[in-house]
């Protein structure tokens, strides 16, 4: 058909052909787009719509006026937050809890996986694995309930303390100084086993020939862990570290909220619990949306900078 036309009209014909080809590709696969439709609608409604809704952080939002009708407030809410009496406390509690938590909880799954990987008795290995994964399936509510029961003045921990040293029971939950340790150590108990799975998977992928060569060279198990296993799981560890740092301001709401008591608030009030209380309990929508936005911007900056640093230092990165 194209033969009839001279070269002058061939160019638009070509792009028309391409368009037709695309349309054909799309119409051939229209059912695949149907597959995707609910998911795209979901993200449009429950991810993109709230993103648009973030502009209430710059407005004096009232439910009756709606997002568009509410008057602009500029950075007023942000300024109010920065100057509020508990700004420093919130930031230091959030950062303190997450940075300390990361330092403590990050290396432990790696160590556990390296150690489990050396176990040759498969029954013992399976038993330990099944045991250490178990706490992962406990809900945060139950975990918090257990913490409250164990750490109560008559709880098992205080009984141990009294048994051993004869001290008076320690009021763990009402003293701010114990909050961080309680939070982080219970994280260790609950999450270490399950987090080790990823590393165990990476270790299973290590070429056994490298180990055999190392044995021939007279390497002990300990040396092989340090020089073969550890380097081979480093890329996995770096990716997980980037993700963890990118989430450093996103300390879980649930456990912090459940473990809060009126007297431990000076160390247990973190940004997410504050946003909930101010936003939903006191209905200061614009103000708490501003606090939330501030939080996610910091998070994004952290994620991007850690990703960049990791790229430079080790050539492993998320994107």
């Amino acid at each position, binding site marked *: 058909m194209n033969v009839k036309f001279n070269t002058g009209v061939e160019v638009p014909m070509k792009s028309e052909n391409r368009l037709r080809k695309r349309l054909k590709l799309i119409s051939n696969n229209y059912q695949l787009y149907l597959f995707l439709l609910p998911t795209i609608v979901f993200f449009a409604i429950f991810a993109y719509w709230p993103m648009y809704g973030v502009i209430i952080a710059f407005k004096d939002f009232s439910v009756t006026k709606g997002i568009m009708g509410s008057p602009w407030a500029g950075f007023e809410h942000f300024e109010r937050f920065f100057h509020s009496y508990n700004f420093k406390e919130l930031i230091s509690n959030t950062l303190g809890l997450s940075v300390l938590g990361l330092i403590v909880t990050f290396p432990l799954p790696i160590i556990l996986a390296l150690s489990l990987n050396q176990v040759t008795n498969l029954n*013992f290995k399976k038993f330990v694995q099944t045991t250490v994964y178990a706490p992962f399936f406990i809900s945060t509510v139950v975990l918090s309930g257990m913490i409250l029961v164990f750490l109560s003045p008559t709880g098992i921990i205080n009984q141990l303390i009294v048994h051993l040293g004869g001290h008076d029971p320690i009021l763990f939950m009402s003293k701010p100084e114990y909050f961080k340790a309680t939070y982080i150590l219970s994280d260790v108990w609950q999450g270490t086993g399950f987090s080790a799975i990823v590393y165990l998977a990476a270790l299973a992928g290590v070429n056994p020939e490298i180990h055999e060569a190392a044995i021939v060279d007279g390497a002990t198990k300990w040396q092989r862990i340090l020089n073969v296993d550890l380097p081979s799981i480093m890329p996995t560890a770096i990716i997980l570290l980037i993700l963890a740092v990118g989430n450093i301001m996103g300390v879980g709401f649930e456990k912090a909220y459940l473990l809060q008591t009126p007297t431990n608030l000076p160390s247990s009030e973190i940004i997410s619990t504050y946003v909930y209380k101010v936003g939903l309990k006191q209905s200061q929508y614009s103000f708490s949306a501003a606090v939330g936005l501030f939080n996610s911007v910091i998070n994004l900056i952290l994620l991007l900078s850690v990703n960049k640093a990791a790229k430079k230092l080790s050539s492993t990165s998320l994107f």
Partner: protein
Amino acid sequence: MSGGQTKSALRSRKDLRFDIINYAILTIIAIIVIYPLYFVLIASVSDPSTVLNGEMWIFPKGLTFEGYSRILHEGSIWLGYKNTILYTTVGTTINVVLTVLAGYALSRNDLYGRNVIMVFLLITMFFSGGLIPTYLVVKKLHLVNTMWALILPKAVSLFNVIIARSFFQESIPKELLEQAKIDGCSDITFFARIVVPLSKAIIAVLALFYAVGYWNSFFDALIYLGDDSKYPLQLILRNILVVQNELASQFVTDVQSAEVQQRVASLLKYGVIVVASAPLLIIYPFVQRFFVKGVMIGSVKG
């Protein structure tokens, strides 16, 4: 020659020492992890005063089932159970269907515009509206105080879509699709007849991930539900375990003395922990391999 032998003997001695320490440490870790759970279990059937006085450590003392018999007669716990089972079933079904469909479509490299769609989805991993704007959307859609407020805002998890996509890319051979197309098979028929039967493993993994999430979640119920009769189990538990004895003392109003009341409340706490956690803890060792598989698929492409 003999030098090499002593070297390897030294090595195996060092390795043996390593093994002994390693097994010992792992045993201690396993005990530390399991003991709190075991303690809750035995405390739930022991005389509360032996627990409170520190007399019960390894075996139950003063066996009693009073806690469980009270729980058995406590309507709100069973209502919570019923609600949780309903939300978990409906929610997980929606989750799995949407995730598998989207994951499959995205795994096809003949899907025109696939990259644009992936970018559209991935952006949501890095930006989000946050709690308040999301709450306002749910409110605007009139979902507040309905079970859909717990389900629809969590209808799809992008992370799971990516897990499903990786699985389909690796385990559905292209030749199968080509052959089916030659035979005049549509995408829907191919998906239903060929892909789904080949993907039982990933469907199980996704269902487990989503179901555990629903079973254990309480935050959404806390912010979206106002009506006690709709409360899921975790919210009821929170009232018993965390909120200062409010409900626990409500449960035991028939008992007069404060001391007895405290005893019963403590029995009740251990009991509800067991009742609420038992289903997952009993099931998971049998499905553990699916979880492990899911984490592994996720980590390969994650």
